[in-house]
């Protein structure tokens, strides 16, 4: 499967990436070469092989349900670009 220029534009939009016009041909080619690798891997016969959820042969450790964090709001918000009344401010978004 090869991507068209319009596919790349759509993916960039979904990924919130602002691609410049001049970069589009190169990006399209690069993505297509990655997909080529994926195609190569797809061709491998994986019948009867369980999908791998994680490369480590281990299981998730669980923690006890205990509150261990204290309020560090001031420290965390000291590096935020904009805060007000304890809230982080971001450019207005309405879905």
């Amino acid at each position: 499967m090869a991507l068209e220029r319009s596919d790349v534009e759509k993916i960039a939009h979904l990924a919130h990436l602002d691609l410049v016009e001049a970069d589009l041909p190169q990006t399209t080619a690069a993505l297509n070469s990655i997909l080529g690798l994926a195609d190569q891997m797809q061709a491998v016969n994986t019948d009867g092989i369980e999908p791998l959820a994680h490369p480590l042969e281990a299981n998730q450790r669980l923690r006890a349900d205990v509150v261990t964090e204290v309020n560090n709001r001031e420290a965390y918000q000291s590096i935020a670009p904009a805060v007000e009344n304890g809230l982080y401010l971001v450019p207005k978004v309405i879905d």
Partner: protein
Amino acid sequence: MQWEVVIGLEIHTQLATQSKIFSGSATTFGSEPNTQASLVDLGMPGVLPVLNQEAVRMAVMFGLAIDAEIGQHNVFARKNYFYPDLPKGYQISQMELPIVGKGYLDIPLEDGTIKRVGVTRAHLEEDAGKSLHEEFNGATGIDLNRAGTPLLEIVSEPDMRSAKEAVAYVKTIHALVRYLGICDGNMAEGSLRCDCNVSVRPKGQVEYGTRCEIKNVNSFRFIEKAINTEVRRQIELIEDGGKVIQQTRLYDPNKDETRAMRSKEEANDYRYFPDPDLLPVVIEDSFLNDVRATLPELPPQKRERFQAQFGLSVYDASVLASSREQADYFEKVVSIAGDAKLAANWVMVELGSLLNKQGLEIDEAPVTAEQLGGMLLRIKDNTISGKIAKTVFEAMASGEGSADEIIDKRGLKQVTDSGAISAVLDEMLAANAEQVEQYRAADEAKRGKMFGFFVGQAMKASKGKANPQQVNELLKSKLEG
């Protein structure tokens, strides 16, 4: 054309853990903004999520309660999308291998029947933060206290065929998670939130119609209204020659309408993939058995027991079993008064409307189960009539003490001495001589209504204290005689 409505629901329940699903931050509702948001919740680089055991236990408990397969090897995945209240740029959720597989719930309907609704799956995930769009001059305020609160998302099969069935299903889930103690069920605070997938199809058609999803409907009443409104919109659209477009919509209760949020075609591709920060979760048989041993008697079992043990109807039994507190209250009243039907009636009708009026939950009831049971004993031994009992009940509710104290203090004891009742009746009949003449002259058909008049007068004359049955009998013999 006859239309059939098809509804499936996704319910998000916030699990009642002390700390978040992947961090040690507190989950208390209503705290100062961002005081419960740690580096993990803020999505800072270099942090690692560590799964909360209690969230796993609660999810397993739910799975066992709906007779579902438990995913003993389940996997967390990243669901990628952009929104400022999701600082990592992805939500940790479950996709391919959820913790709870296929199960079912039996829901009691208003007509007394039981309907089985399939649960497709339930999976663990983290809640997002909150965005506040008002009052910041072109900016949006972000509070991440809620980010990372554990959620169990419960996905139903498209098995419901009306808004009423959908509400009955949500109520069943609501009761169940509260019974299990895994969610406080507070819909106003967002502890239990509902997305409704709604479509319509011509009756008899096998394929489903195109569905719309109504996001975040947060009360039983709004669920019913939102679905009915959406169903009307879709039917009108199709009958006018239009086509339903698959999209996400929001319900506006003020205008009683649903509005499009975004179309699914434009929707994000979530690019799910297994989260490399989390290893697969393995649930051992011993863990499953330990959780199974802690399951309480659940609403359907309680309902069946109430029917069998007390001879109650499906509806009464399911109303009483709908919350653990109410069921316990009812059982205590029965244990004192011994009469289950009388107890059921008083708990559901009089106590129910009192709680409704005062906006109280049953565990805050101003009349205790002991008080109510004691009063029902006095109805049963004919100390008071059912009518006087309402007066006694109100007095108990306003803190005047036990039924016996109130009956004594206010002199409400029923008069059962037939001599005394007879004297009251004679006096009353003498005062209404004209009506007595008319009664005796009237034919059988008219007498019924006229007899009621005399009963009313007699009860009034005795200040409601004469035993109604005796009044009836004595009055009949006096009028006929």
